[in-house]
């Protein structure tokens, strides 16, 4: 994808001050505006309604679209950058369209020591996709997430934010079949736009941002392949024996894998 294409994709087509007849977002904005105003009224400071409003738009569009961000900025009378900076911090806001079923499997401690790796491998194999990816038919998105606070019933996951406990391959088979057959109990997410392979903006554009997003970004500092942000571990890295080994390792490993920061070991 070219840079130009990416930029268009992340740019709002809706503008509160410029009428563009036929823009689908107009109707949604008019519909949700009263609800947004009610959210704003809940707080002493309007900006507190930023995250609740983003949730609201995402519940209708399936992702936090550039138009939704523009609308939130407009309603809060804040610059778009304020909204962007907040939204980009939170992992439950999807900046690009995702699947109608968001499958989020826990990869944290209690699940890992109770067989979560097998569950994750099973999902990857049976869906044919990896972490942070969406199936070609747009039905499933898959993500390995952090502790979901259901450790007593590990391994656990959420399907469109509804818990599913004590996972087994058989349960996964039944669940995927039920979703494909349209008989699954959990409602599908709305999907106003066809998803692409991933919904993460950073992974593709390589934009570096401080924060939760940046740390799992292969372009971020850290790791032996990147000296740009090395501050604290200089002492070790400058050690001659370490440097020699590091050098060897780098020669056999020209590039860190793009998913190095996120992939499990399977």
């Amino acid at each position, binding site marked *: 994808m070219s840079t130009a294409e990416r930029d268009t994709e992340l740019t709002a087509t809706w503008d509160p001050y410029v009428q563009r007849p036929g823009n689908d977002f107009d109707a949604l904005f008019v519909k949700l505006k009263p609800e947004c105003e009610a959210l704003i009224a809940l707080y002493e*400071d309007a900006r507190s309604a930023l*995250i609740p409003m983003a949730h609201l738009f995402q519940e209708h569009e399936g992702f936090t679209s550039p138009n939704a961000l523009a609308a939130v900025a407009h309603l809060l009378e804040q610059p778009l950058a304020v909204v962007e900076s907040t939204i980009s911090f939170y992992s439950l806001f999807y900046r690009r369209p995702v699947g109608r079923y968001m499958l989020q499997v826990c990869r944290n401690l209690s699940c890992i020591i109770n067989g979560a790796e097998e569950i994750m491998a099973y999902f990857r194999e049976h869906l044919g996709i990896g972490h942070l990816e969406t199936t070609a038919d747009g039905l499933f998105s898959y993500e390995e997430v952090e502790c979901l606070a259901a450790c007593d019933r590990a391994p656990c996951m959420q399907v469109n934010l509804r818990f599913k406990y004590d996972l087994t391959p058989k349960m996964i088979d039944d669940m995927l079949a039920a979703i494909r057959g349209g008989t699954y109990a959990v409602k599908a997410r709305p999907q106003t736009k066809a998803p692409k392979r991933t919904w993460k903006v950073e992974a593709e554009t390589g934009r570096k941002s401080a924060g939760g997003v940046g740390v799992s970004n292969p372009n971020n500092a850290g790791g032996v392949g990147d000296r740009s942000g090395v501050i604290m571990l200089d002492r070790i890295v400058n050690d001659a024996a370490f440097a020699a080994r590091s050098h060897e390792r780098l020669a056999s490993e020209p590039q860190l894998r793009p998913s190095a920061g996120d992939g499990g070991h399977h």
Partner: protein
Amino acid sequence: MASPVVEVLTRGIGELNLRDIEVYRSTGGYVQLERAIKELGPQAVMEAATGSNLRGRGGAGFPTGRKWSFLPNNGRPRYLVCNCDEAEPGTFKDHMLLEETPHQIIEGILLGSYAIGCHHAFIYIRGEFQDGFEIMRDAVKQARAAGYIGKGICGGDYDLEFTIHRGAGAYICGEETGLLNSLEGKRGEPRLKPPFPAIKGLYGEPTVVNNVETLAYLPYILRNGAEWFAKAGPERSPGFKVVSISGHVKKPGNYEVPLGTTIRQLIDDCAGGLRDGRTFLGVQPGGGSSACLFAEHLDLSYDFDTIAKAGSMLGSGAMVVFDDTTDFVKASYALIRFYAHESCGQCTPCREGGNWIQKTLERILDGRGVDSDIDILMSAAHEITGLNLCALGDSIEPFLGSVLKRFEDQFRAYVQRAERVAS
């Protein structure tokens, strides 16, 4: 030995539909709120919290009454925020309390707000708790209809607004100042302290942030008296605690016990002991941020001070038990990856340090590890801990450091395997 389990917050869970306000009321619910407003007055509630020596159940264990007493009398509005952003690895008590007994939480929030003179309370619920959010929304609707929220609560002259705020997926928002930033519609980045929230919190006003479980104990402290709570468990660390036990035990779950119960009792008498034929290797006593304890610690009293003295912490009261099937390299990796992922990125030692340790462990697990990688892991305590704005950075190392010291052979074995393959 008899089970140490008690039922205070957990009473009726699994038997009664406590989401229904009438059922909650039939168990004595909202009686203490009414009593506080009609008879006791705010000062008495404040004294009950102080007298019971109720320490925060969210992780830091700070005395609740003392926290409240820091609020300045400057005539400014005050806020109370209930922290339900439960995301500490291994912890699942607030999840249960939120879904099973929402009114108990509401009554606790109301009592806390009344005590400190707050007129707008918030509950911050982590974004993943969609069910819990909906359950709380219904419960608040019922409580409002019954006259417990709004103007002139229980016919008195106390007014309180109550707002449920849903997060959007960020562990760091469980840190109280990160939470306040998030509640203000900002990135959930912790603030520099001081000023502490009691002086300058939400919207720059005096604010108290209390954990769900902490507040939920208030009605019972009022009902049974501060003495009742203070007398249960060790003097400086009294009361009851819902302990989340998971990992390699027969019956993982939430068990409410008096503090001072031993770790062994918790594992054997509550959680059914280890799976058959397995031996005990370690236990993480207080969530993902706590150092691992071992067989020699099993008879320690489970309370804030004893666990801290043993070099770990009680934290949120989440125990993860490890038997001899545990791969501690993988276990460490799961936690380190979590902290690297959840670092807000403000402080370099935390942002870069977590990432480096993660990559180092990844290399070891991938069969590309070298001896000096172990040295990098060992440097984490010195290079990361204590150098950050909040406790997240300090939480990266404890577990890794403790199991690396005890099970260094497991880490070395990975490296040696790698070197054998390479040669």
